[in-house]
């Protein structure tokens, strides 16, 4: 029998902390970007560049006006140097000569980038049965499977294209779930967003593919402000996935996206995120600030499910939320947030119950290692009219290393007598007895940790679409390789 030598905690932790960010390459693609800074001219420039109609420009300028009056919030349990909003490039596009006809015309250099990212477009197209929209820096570069989707009436395209082609749809829904005034970052995004994905599923249609967006910040000194709008008409169903990476840079890059989901009567939207922005080096230098606003609205009998695997970013600050407006609507939130080194995460969800018999489930798992801090912050609000509503929340944290911190801030507000709310949270480390049990049975310490972490996150991983569960599992293993608490 093979006997695993017991690896000391320090060596293991060293290994983890020395693990380098895999996706930290830059691509040498000529890009077109404008001067740093933000003013009305920049917004007009972006709008013009995108050939937008007037109402869109007005929307942006209004948002800019609102943003200027707002103050950057500081209530979250995170510390970071506030970005200088005049020192960011708000528009940056990979230079392309002509509009692409098909994926085969894509710049070979860029294609190689995506290959290195492990999302070979060709392969995905042929094998994985996934339609991908790739957003690099600020602009959407490739969308696959468009025709196949179009046959069903499904629209899946860059939002800039949607503004041109389907203005009435965009106009009807944009800013309805997350109003411009919602918060500082959503206002900023509304003013300067340059691209993102748009997805429309017509009535009674079940989208046969997993729709996917891949985001990458490439250029130095740029911010990424993408905007995603998913509309599921009555009785439709869609599963959507986003992934993200960024190159290694010493400076902090800002990512302030807005994602709006609209699930009309009896529709179902499943939105999964594998977030792997560059987390900064082991001394906490560099990394992406991930300040994202995500919210969905559920009409009668509709369902929205958020699944997120958060392993990257220097600072993560986001709360994918559900407004359960309709009767019998369902909101779900499944999250695994891993922080290491000096990463900070303040994440969670908001479930606002307005309709009768609405149900929500929250499963949040935090894993903290190194000197990182992870917080769960969530709101469960049951309004007076939301009779017989039900919520179950569970937030667990696993601590690895004695310098990290894990925090829980659940807000629970109930205003009627027929609803039931349960909340539980635990914080602990991997027990020595658990490791010992595995060791006894011939499982090495490192494998045992992987096994336990895997089991710990299983509830959430199981919710991911098949193709990405594998990727997420790998990501988890990489970011926590060998750390024994």
């Amino acid at each position, binding site marked *: 029998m093979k006997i695993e030598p017991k690896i000391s905690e320090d060596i293991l932790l060293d290994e983890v902390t020395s693990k380098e960010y895999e996706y930290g390459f830059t691509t040498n693609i000529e890009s077109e970007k404008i001067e740093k800074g933000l003013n009305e001219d920049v917004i007009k420039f972006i709008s013009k560049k995108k050939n937008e109609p007037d109402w869109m420009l007005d929307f942006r300028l209004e948002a800019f006006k609102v943003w200027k009056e707002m103050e950057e919030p500081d*209530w979250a349990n995170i510390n970071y140097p506030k970005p200088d909003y005049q020192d960011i490039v708000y528009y940056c596009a990979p230079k392309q000569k002509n509009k692409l006809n098909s994926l085969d015309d894509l710049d070979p250099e860029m294609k190689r980038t995506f290959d290195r990212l492990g999302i070979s477009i060709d392969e995905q197209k042929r094998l994985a049965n996934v339609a991908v929209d790739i957003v690099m820096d600020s602009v959407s570069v490739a969308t696959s499977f468009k025709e196949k989707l179009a046959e069903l009436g499904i629209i899946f395209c860059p939002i800039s294209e949607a503004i041109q082609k389907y203005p009435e749809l965009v106009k009807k829904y944009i800013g309805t779930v997350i109003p411009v005034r919602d918060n500082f970052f959503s206002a900023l995004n509304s003013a300067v967003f340059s691209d993102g994905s748009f997805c429309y599923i017509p009535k009674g249609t079940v989208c046969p593919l997993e729709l996917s967006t891949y985001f990458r910040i490439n250029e130095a000194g740029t911010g990424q402000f993408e905007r995603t709008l998913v509309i599921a008409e009555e009785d439709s169903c869609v599963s959507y996935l986003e992934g993200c990476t960024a190159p290694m840079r010493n400076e902090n890059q800002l990512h302030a996206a807005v994602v709006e989901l609209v699930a009309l009567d009896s529709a179902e939207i499943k939105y999964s995120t594998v977030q792997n922005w560059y987390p900064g080096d082991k001394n906490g230098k560099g990394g992406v600030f991930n300040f994202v606003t995500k919210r969905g609205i559920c009409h009668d009998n509709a369902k929205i499910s958020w699944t997120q695997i958060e392993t990257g970013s220097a600072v993560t600050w986001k709360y994918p939320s559900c407004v359960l407006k309709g009767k019998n609507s369902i909101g779900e939130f499944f999250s695994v947030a891993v922080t290491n080194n000096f990463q900070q995460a303040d994440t969670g969800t908001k479930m606002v119950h307005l309709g009768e018999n609405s149900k929500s489930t929250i499963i949040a798992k935090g894993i903290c290692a190194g000197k990182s801090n992870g917080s769960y912050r969530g709101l469960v609000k049951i309004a*007076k009219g939301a009779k017989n509503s039900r919520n179950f929340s569970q937030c667990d*944290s696993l*601590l*690895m*290393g*004695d*310098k*990290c*911190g*894990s*925090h*829980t*801030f*659940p*807000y*629970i*507000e*109930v*205003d*009627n*007598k*027929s*609803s*039931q*709310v*349960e*909340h*539980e*949270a*635990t*914080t*602990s*480390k991997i027990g020595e007895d658990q490791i010992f049990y595995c060791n006894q049975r011939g499982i090495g310490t490192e494998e045992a940790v992987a096994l336990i972490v895997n089991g710990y996150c299983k509830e959430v991983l199981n919710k991911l679409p098949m193709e990405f569960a594998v990727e997420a599992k790998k990501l988890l293993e990489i970011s926590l390789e060998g750390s024994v*608490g």
Partner: protein
Amino acid sequence: MLIEEIKKYVVDADLTSTQKKSLDYFLENGFPTTKDEDWKYTSLKKVLKRKYCLKSSDFELNDEMIQQYSLGVKDKIIFKNGKIYSEPKILGVSIKKMKDLVMPKNSALCYLNEAICENSYEIVFDKNLNLDNPIEILHFINNYNDYFLQLRTKITCGSGSNVKLVERFCNIGNNTLINSCMHADVKRNSFFEISKLQSYNDNTHTIDNTLVDQDRDSTANVHTFSFDGSFIRNNLNFYQNNENCTSNMNGITIIDKSNFVDHHTFVDHKFQNCLSNESYKGVYFDSTKGVFNGKIMVRPDAQKINAFQSNNNLLFSDNASIKTKPQLEIYADDVKCSHGCTIGQIDKKSLFYMRSRGFSEKTAKGLLTFAFLIEVIEKLNAKEIVDYAKTEIAKKLSIEKDLL
């Protein structure tokens, strides 16, 4: 408006330099508003709208009144509008009036209390003093006008002592806003327990700040019973300043009409091998509002901490509401911390079971609600307090006490 009153009052008050400093701090910060995270759900606006006076007037106190509010415990410390009225003669217990009593503070209200409280007392329990029975602290309050009263007490439990207290505010007068600060200094290897009985009349509004500092190997228990009172805010803070401390907090809240109760608790685990246990149960009728905020902090390097917290609530009316925020902040890894929180109703199956065995709906509901609360009641040691709790619960649930 009240701030103007305070400014007027301090003109002829003889304040020490520390008091002046505290006053400046308070005037700078003012009364907390709903914009403060700790007061997010608790608005003082309505309470502060009244015209309060800060000067007390004297009144007669007779044995009958004392009898009415006492639990029947032999030893009593009685205060009249914050002034000492009578004290027990027990060897090892001494009460001193203090001119300048500096205590830890957790909000602007504590600063205000420090600045303008006229009667501050220190109650000292000697080393190794072992009290068999609890001592009752009764505060009688009566004033001609609406009254803003400051109470300020420091309790020192000498090392190795065993001290049990029962505290009760008895307002027999007009509208009164009580701002009470209590600081318990629990020395090495001692045991300290206080039960706060909060059954006030409708014109009593209370802000009760209790701060407990614990030294090595000590145990501190605080039980809070909130049954009546239009506005109750409890700030309960434990600071574990050395190893092997145990802190227990229990609370029962049963309120009706349009009463409001807010429990804010905070346990600061600064050293290793400590324990905290928290269990708050609430039952809300009519258009009552309940707030619970329990915070557990585990500081860096405070390993081997076990901290448990639970908050369970029953809502019996659509006009009642509960806002709860159980909060953990943990900076050490070898800990076991958990919190749980539920909001719900009486189980219909259990109710049906009891109804099918001939209990009236009221009795069945009452018994099931009592069963919901029993976990807290079982933690009480003194029989007088168990008796008090049962009487009040029976009254609130309108069932016969003998059934409990």
